[in-house]
């Protein structure tokens, strides 16, 4: 194995994007950085074409909602993987509730297409420049983003449920 490890990766990133990286951590051995959402495209481009790190694979993209974090309510979490160096990286970008916007990364990783649509569907995070940002899993008529914490899990239109039986 080569010398690429979390320290090297973080140093490389901090050398280039020191102002945009708000924090860095290593929960369970996976380097996690919190990034300025405006910088997501340059950072991913840098990592993908980097001659040593070569982050060639987007493993996962998902949203998250922290209603208590004022100004940083909604987040997008990227999991990247470099097959050549077998190192993973987690990038988090947080956005305010009233303007949840971030650039799409579909131009870099095609796999992000549906995952961004899913995130839009679940959390209402808008991906600027996405080729087809429509609902993917839920019906088109749905007028809210169900995975946000304020919405309940259960079907609110049910009439056959007696709350007494469920201790409510």
């Amino acid at each position, binding site marked *: 194995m080569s010398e690429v490890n979390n320290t090297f990766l973080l140093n490389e990133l901090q050398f280039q994007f020191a102002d945009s990286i708000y924090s860095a951590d290593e929960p369970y051995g996976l380097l996690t950085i919190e990034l300025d959402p405006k910088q997501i495209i340059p950072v991913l481009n840098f990592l993908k074409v980097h001659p040593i790190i070569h982050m060639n694979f987007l493993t996962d993209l998902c949203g998250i909602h922290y209603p208590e974090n004022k100004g940083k309510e909604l987040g997008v979490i990227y999991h990247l993987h470099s097959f050549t160096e077998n190192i993973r990286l987690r990038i988090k970008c947080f956005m305010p509730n009233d303007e949840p916007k971030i650039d799409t990364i579909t131009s870099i990783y095609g796999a992000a297409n549906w995952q961004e649509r899913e995130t839009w569907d679940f959390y209402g995070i808008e991906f600027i420049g996405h080729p087809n940002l429509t609902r993917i*899993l*839920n*019906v088109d008529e749905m007028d809210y983003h*169900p995975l946000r914490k304020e919405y309940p*899990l*259960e*079907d*609110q239109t*049910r009439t056959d449920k007696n709350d007494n039986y469920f201790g409510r």
Partner: protein
Amino acid sequence: MSNLQIVTTPPGLEGQGFFATNFEKAVGLARANSIWPLPFATSCCGIEFMATMASNYDLGRFGAERISFSPRQADLLMVMGTIAKKMGPVLRQVYLQMAEPRWVIAVGACASSGGIFDTYSVLQGVDKVIPVDVYVPGCPPRPEQIIDGITKIQELVKNEPLRRRNSPEYKALLASYGIE
């Protein structure tokens, strides 16, 4: 071949060279033993249905050998698996495309009641959109249970009066689902 079972003859008048029985009974007998199921398999229960169709359980033994993927030629709609709200209209349309007489069997907890998925996106039982004749419990039901459900349907088919589909009660049932 000694333990070969054939269906029992319905009660009737028998003589040399003739057999007379109730027309209803004869039709019921024929229908019940040549059901063409339409598998509307959406998830896990569909895999158990595949096992039911395959060599070990072989649904063909009950006269349901011929799977009809076209609703037009199907007698029995087998709803297997979760029906999401997005899928509800599709299911209803499939039901409407079937010709009378038609029967519906809800296989599995999800199709019967929504199962463990009491969520915003899942239809809480297919009987919200179409009338159901037999419910098969289980998550997923074993092939034996699915076969049991089919035999229950066979009983219904066998004993159904010919006029049932024209009766006001049946029309009222369909009307309660908004089906003309």
